[in-house]
C-alpha cells in the first residue's frame, strides 16, 4: 500500500507543533497501524530525519499505552486500540491524518506522546479498596452474585487509554471514572468506601481540568473496550447518594 501521512510533530511540551506530510510506500495490509509507523521511522532514521515519537507497549490491546487520533477518530475507524488496528482497514492511496490525544489534562510531551498521569491521580484519590496485604478473609467468605461480578468485570475492562477523553468535546474523564466507580461499587468488598470514593475521585477529576459530561456518548463509541455510557449514570447515582447532588458530576 502507498499512503500519504499527515502527522503532528512537536519537539517538546513548550514548543509549537505542526502537521508534517510523509509519503510512504510498501506497507503490508496485514501490518498493524503501529507497524506502519515503525516502517516510517525506519525510513526516517535511514534518511537522517528525527523519527516520530509515539507510545505503545503490549501491542495486543490491553496495556492502554498506545492511542492516537486517526482521521479525527480516537484509535481510528475500528472499535479497538491503535495497536490492534490493521492496515486492511485502509485503502491504497489513502491520506491519513495522525494527531495526539488533545485535551488540557493530557499535555503533549513530544509528537504523538501525551502525559496521562492525571488518570493516575484520579485513582490515587480513591480508585481502590483499602485492604492491606495479609488482612484478607477467605476468598469464599463473601459470595458475590454472578450478575454483580460480571458487571464489575465489564467495568474493570477499562484500560485507561484516554480515548474517551480525546473523543469528548468537553474532554470529560467521566467514562474512565465511571468504569472504576462501577467496578468497585458492584462488589461487596467495595461498599465501605463507596460514597467517599466517588466524591474524592470526582473532586480530583475536576481539579485536573477534565470537563463535565453532557451525555453525547462520543466516549463510549471511541472506547476500545466498549464500556457503556451507563457507568456514568452509576457514577452520578453514587454521587447523589453520597449527598453531593448538583455539582459538576451531574
Amino acid at each position: 500500500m502507498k499512503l500519504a501521512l499527515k502527522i503532528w510533530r512537536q519537539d517538546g511540551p513548550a514548543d509549537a507543533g505542526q502537521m508534517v506530510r510523509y509519503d510512504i510506500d510498501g506497507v503490508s495490509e496485514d501490518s498493524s497501524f503501529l507497524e506502519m509507523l515503525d516502517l516510517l521511522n525506519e525510513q526516517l532514521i535511514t534518511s537522517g530525519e528525527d523519527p516520530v515519537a509515539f507510545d505503545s507497549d503490549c501491542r495486543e490491546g490491553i496495556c492502554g499505552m498506545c492511542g492516537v487520533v486517526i482521521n479525527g477518530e480516537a484509535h481510528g475507524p475500528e472499535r479497538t486500540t491503535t495497536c490492534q488496528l490493521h492496515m486492511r482497514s485502509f485503502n491504497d492511496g489513502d491520506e491519513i491524518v495522525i494527531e495526539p490525544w488533545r485535551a488540557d489534562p493530557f499535555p503533549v510531551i513530544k509528537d504523538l506522546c501525551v502525559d496521562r498521569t492525571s488518570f493516575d491521580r484520579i485513582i490515587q484519590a480513591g480508585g481502590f479498596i483499602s485492604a492491606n496485604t495479609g488482612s484478607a478473609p477467605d476468598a469464599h467468605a463473601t459470595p458475590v452474585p454472578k450478575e454483580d461480578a460480571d458487571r464489575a468485570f465489564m467495568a474493570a475492562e477499562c484500560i485507561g487509554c484516554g480515548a474517551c477523553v480525546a473523543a469528548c468535546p468537553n474532554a470529560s474523564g467521566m467514562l474512565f471514572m465511571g468504569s472504576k466507580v462501577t467496578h468497585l461499587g458492584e462488589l461487596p468488598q467495595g461498599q465501605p468506601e463507596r460514597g467517599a470514593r466517588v466524591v474524592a475521585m470526582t473532586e480530583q477529576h475536576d481539579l485536573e481540568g477534565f470537563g463535565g459530561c453532557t451525555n453525547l456518548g462520543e466516549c463510549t463509541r471511541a472506547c476500545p473496550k466498549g464500556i457503556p455510557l451507563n457507568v456514568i449514570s452509576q457514577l452520578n447515582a453514587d454521587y447523589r447518594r453520597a449527598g453531593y447532588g448538583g455539582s459538576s458530576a451531574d
Partner: protein
Amino acid sequence: MTDTVTSTPELIDGVYREGAPIADSKAPGGDIAGKWTTRKFEAALVNPANRRKLSVIIVGTGLAGASAGATLGEAGYQVKSFCYQDSPRRAHSIAAQGGINAAKNYKGDGDSVHRLFYDTVKGGDYRSRETNVYRLAEVSADIIDQCVAQGVPFAREYGGLLDNRSFGGVQVSRTFYARGQTGQQLLIGAYQALERQIAAGTVEMYARHEMLELVVVDGKARGIIARDMVTGEIETHLADAVVLASGGYGNVFFLSTNAMGCNVTASWRAHRKGAYFGNPCYTQIHPTCIPQAGDHQSKLTLMSESLRNDGRIWVPKNAEDCDKDPREIGEDDRDYYLERIYPGFGNLVPRDIASRQAKNMCDEGRGVGPAVDGVRRGVYLDFADAIGRMGEDAVRSKYGNLFDMYERITGENPYQVPMRIYPAVHYTMGGLWVDYDLQSSIPGLFVTGEANFSDHGANRLGASALMQGLADGYFVLPNTIRDYLAKGPFTKISDDDPAVVEAQQTVTSRLEKLLSIDGTRTVDSYHKALGKVMWEKCGMERTEEGLREAIEEIRALKADFWSNVRVLGAADGLNQSLEKAGRVADFLELGELMCIDALHRRESCGGHFRAESQTEDGEALRHDDEYAYVAAWEWGGDDEAPVLHKEDLVYDFIELKQRSYK
C-alpha cells in the same frame, strides 16, 4: 554470601570458566512444610517506628513490583517505585490471559499444597529448587484471598462462589481466572493498592524512568542511576536496598509475546556489577500464538493456553492437503497428533511438548497457513467440536475476547474456520540468581517475579507466572527483606561517593557513545538480526554446532553495532531510538551468555530440546547425573569468558523421574 571467585584458569569449551560451587541457598532446615514458617519466625523484625527511616527502591511495576511496593508501603517503609511506561498500570503482567493457580482445592478434586508443589517441580523438569517451589505453593491460596479483598473480579458461578478451571499440564482445577484478562485484573488490583500508597505518601512514583545502572557501595546494592525519559536527566536514587522486579528478557528474540519495551537492562546492569545470572538459556516457548504473517511484524500475539481445554489441535495427515480449506478436510484425513501421541493428556500436554510437536509437524511439511521463508509454520486449533457440544454462545462467553482478537489480527473468523497457531517465545524461566530470601549474589539486591530464576526450573506451568509474581511481591519479599533491613540504620551515602560518580559516568559515557557512532544501520535492524540468530539456534531445538555458530555471529553483530549503529537526536529529551539502542546493546551481551549456557547444558530439559540428547523415539532426554544443578553465571568482564558457579539441586521430598505424558 557468595564464594570468592576461584575460577579455573583454563577455558572450558573455549567460552567459559568454572568457579566455586554455590554451597548454600540459605533455606532453613527441617521438614519442607515447616521451612517457610521457620524462616518468617527467624527473620528479624523491624520496629514500625524505624520502618519510615528505611528506604527501598523497586524497579518495575508489574505484579511482582507493584505488589511489593504496595505491601512495603503499607508496612511503613519509604519506597521509590520506577517504571519505563507512562503509568505503573501498563506493565506487561497486564497481558497475561489465562489465569492464576492456587492450591485452594475449592473443587474438592484432590488438590493440595503438596500437589501444586509436586506439579510445579515436575513441570519444571526437576530443575527448580524444592524449597522455593514449596513456599510458592504454600502462599498461593493467600493470593486469591488478597485479590478478592481488593476487588479483583474473578469469574464466579451462579451460587456466587469462585469458578476454577484446569490449565495446561495438570489434572486438577486450580486455576482462578477473569475471562481471558486475568493478568489485567490482578495487575489493576496491585496498581490500585500501589496508587493508594502513593496517595498516602509511603511510595514515590517515577514513571517514564529507566534504570541504567546499579549503585554498589562497599559490596552492597545502595541505589540506581535512572534516566528520566522525558527530560533526559540522569538521576541518582539512593536507598538501603534495591529490588529488581523488571520482568523477563524474551525480547532478546525480537519477536516474542513480550511488550515492545520489555528489556533486560536492569538485570543486565546488575549482572555486570556482580549479580549472578541463573539458567539464562531457560526460555519458554508458548505453543498457542498467532503465526507470523510477514517481515513487518513487531511482535507475536499469544492466544491463551486455556483454549487448549476446548480446542483440538491437528494438521492434515497428507502434506498435499495443507493448502486446502480445512473445513473440506475429512476427519479421516486429519491428524490430531497430540491426542494420538499422548492419549493420557491429549491437547493438555505441557507447553514444551505441545510446542515441539507443532514444530515437528511443520518440519515434516504438514504445517498450514501462509509460508514465511518457504515453510508453512502453523497448526490448526479447531473449535468445531466444542461449538457442537456447548453451542456457539457458550464458546463465546468463555473465549469471546480471544476469538475477537484473533479475527482482528488475522482477518479470519475462528467460529467458522479453525484458528492457526504456532509456538512463540513467551517467558523466561532464567533470570538473576537468588537465594531462599530472593536476595541476589549482591547483598541488598533482591529480585522478584520473572526477573529472578527461582521457581519454574526448566519450564513453567501455565497460570504460574501470575502466582509467582504476586507470591514474591505480597508475601515472600516483605518477610525476607525485613531481615536485611533490620540490620539498619545503614551508612549514609552521599551523591559524590566515588561509587556513585563511577556509576553516573558509566551511564553518561555510554549514552554519548551511542549517539556519537553515527553509523548506517538502525537499532531495530540489529535487534531483528539478533532475534533471528537466537530463534534459529537457541530456540526450541538446539545443537552444539548451531550454538557455536550463534556465539560467533552474535559477537560479530555486537562489534558491528558498536561501530555502525545510527542513533539520531540528543540525550536531553524524549529519544526512543536512544532508549532502544541501550536495550539492544544489553540484549547482544545477554544473547551470547544464553548461547554459552545452552552450549554447556548438554541435555534436553524442560522448555528446550538438545538434539544430541534424545530417546530412541525422539523424546527429550535429561541427564540428572550431570546437570541437576542451577547454572549461576558470573560476569567475567568485557570480552572475557563468564564464570560458571553450580548450585546442586538436592531433591529430599520429590523423587526425580523422567517425565512421561504418554
